[in-house]
């Protein structure tokens, strides 16, 4: 009798068809503007954590964790939208560094006064889902997910200063349908997959990697490293990439992921300022850019090669 193969996807390359297998250092060489090899992408997540978190799919780190009503975590997260974000924006503008703002739909719906101020910055808006209790996950019915994406984009469009083309899922979680649904909704690129240091094509979109391992939330709140240690790690990453770029010609992206509710606290912001000072000091070797500019340059380079 015939038997189902035990390892049906055991084959050369990937075990899915979302993107082909590719090693970074075997790809065609290109460079960023002015021959630079390191693009710097700073992304600031602006998130809302509802008090009545249901945790469908899963509860992300930072969600309510005490018995209801968890005023403690609700207000600590809300602090980011009231205060933390303004410290970060000021630190960026003092150094003239571009960034993107990953904004959740419910944030602008709840806080038009914040949306107005975010829209007045030079930073690019990225859609960041509805809120931190609206996960995209395997098991979420497709129609619900489609509606979630639509609602997010419709709401953000009312406030965004430009058409939104990028997407960062809450807690970077996707279902099997997310990429397709994003494409159908007019999104051109996402930042959920952390598997590269260059943009690449994925299921009709482009993925722009945004390091998780260097993220403020991950290093400080999950790994429990000191704020100064986080800053050390970012500086070490910059210096390593600079050294590497002297020996290897490959263009790379350094994605720095920040959260208003994490690094915007009074006792943390000085460490971000130190990091930004370091990045500014190294700007001759870096290309600080917003994500759409990075993608556009990459696409042009792909077409040229």
């Amino acid at each position, binding site marked *: 009798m015939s038997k189902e193969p035990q390892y049906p996807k055991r084959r050369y390359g990937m075990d899915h068809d979302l993107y082909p297998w590719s090693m970074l250092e075997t790809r065609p060489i290109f460079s960023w503007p002015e021959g630079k090899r390191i693009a710097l992408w700073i992304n600031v997540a602006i998130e809302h954590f*509802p*008090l*009545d978190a249901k945790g469908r799919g899963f509860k992300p780190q930072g969600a309510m964790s*005490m*018995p*209801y*009503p*968890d*005023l*403690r975590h*609700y*207000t*600590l997260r*809300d*602090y980011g*939208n*009231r*205060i933390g974000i*303004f*410290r970060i924006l000021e630190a960026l503008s003092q150094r003239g560094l571009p960034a993107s703002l990953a904004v959740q739909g419910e944030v602008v719906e*709840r*806080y*038009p*006064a*914040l949306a*107005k*101020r975010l829209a007045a910055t030079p930073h690019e808006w990225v859609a960041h889902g509805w809120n931190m209790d609206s996960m995209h996950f395997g098991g979420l019915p497709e129609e619900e997910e489609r509606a979630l994406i639509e609602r997010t984009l419709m709401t953000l469009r009312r406030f965004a200063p430009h058409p939104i083309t990028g997407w960062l899922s809450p807690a970077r979680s996707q279902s099997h349908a997310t990429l397709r649904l994003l494409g159908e909704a007019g999104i051109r690129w996402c930042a959920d997959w952390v598997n590269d240091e260059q943009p690449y094509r994925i299921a009709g979109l482009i993925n722009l990697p945004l390091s998780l391992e260097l993220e403020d939330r991950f290093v400080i709140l999950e790994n*429990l490293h*000191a*704020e*100064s240690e986080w800053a050390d790690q970012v500086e070490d990453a910059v210096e390593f990439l600079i050294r590497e770029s002297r020996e290897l010609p490959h263009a790379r992206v350094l994605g720095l992921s920040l959260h208003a509710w994490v690094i915007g*606290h*009074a*006792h*943390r*912001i*000085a*460490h971000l300022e130190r990091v930004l000072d370091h990045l500014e000091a190294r700007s001759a070797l870096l290309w600080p850019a917003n994500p759409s500019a990075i993608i556009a340059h990459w696409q042009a380079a792909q077409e040229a090669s």
Partner: protein
Amino acid sequence: MKADPGLYDYWPWEGRPRIVWPGGARLALWVAPNIEFYELDPPPNPFRKAWPRPHPDVLGYATRDYGNRVGQQRLMRVLDRYGIRASVSLSTAVLIHHPEIIAMGKDRGWEFFSHGIYNTRYVYGMSEEEERAMLAESMALIAEHTGQHCDGYLAPALSHSEVTIDLFAELGGLYTCDLFHDDQPTPVKTRSGARFVSIPYSLELNDTIVYVVQKVEPRRYARMIKDAFDRLYREGERSGTVLCIPLHPYQVSHPHRLAALEEALDYICGHEGVWKATGREIAKYYLEHYYDQALAAIAEENAA
């Protein structure tokens, strides 16, 4: 269940009206030791266990009892040295269990406010009547044993209900320490419409959060407080800020940890323009001078 506690409106940090603290100070410092009593054998709460081990959790109990037996006096010496009058977040059963500690605090002009009856009695599962009775009893105990009106509240073990803050405002309280959304006092909306405020309690600098939850080393704790101070002191020039140092003598007063607090206080108290206040003094000053201005500014911000 509510998606939003409905206690305050959005108010961006940017562009707020200026606050100036007494004497032209730009930062109000208040130090809030939690003087607590944890029961050896509390009744079970269906929503939260008091102790991780089967009762008696000797290790957990003794860890906390150390604060009252050893930590209090050690901490008092430090606060005395810097001329700081503490604002005590009090498990009000301590008034009866350990009156000696209360007497020492009274001698120093300390403020006492309610932190419930015991830190092993959570609000979870209480009816509104039961919670009101607990709050009223804790306030009455403070009045009876210290002669002070209880103006502030920090819920026991940060356990809340949907009406916790409404109830405290109705019972005559002036300020809550349970909201961590801001670095300035803010008006709080309660169902009675009372003039009532949130005073920042800086939970991220709370020694228990720092040492137990975040697993921070003592020297980094000093650095965190100094970093927070530097930022709030700078921003306080624009509009006065509040820095709270929440403490637990059972955490901070250990021989390997107390020098870190001293280092931070030494640094802070070496600056001009720091108002060494109590929670009550900050609340009253704000209510008198800035509360109405804040209401107007918040309404304007959210009107557009």
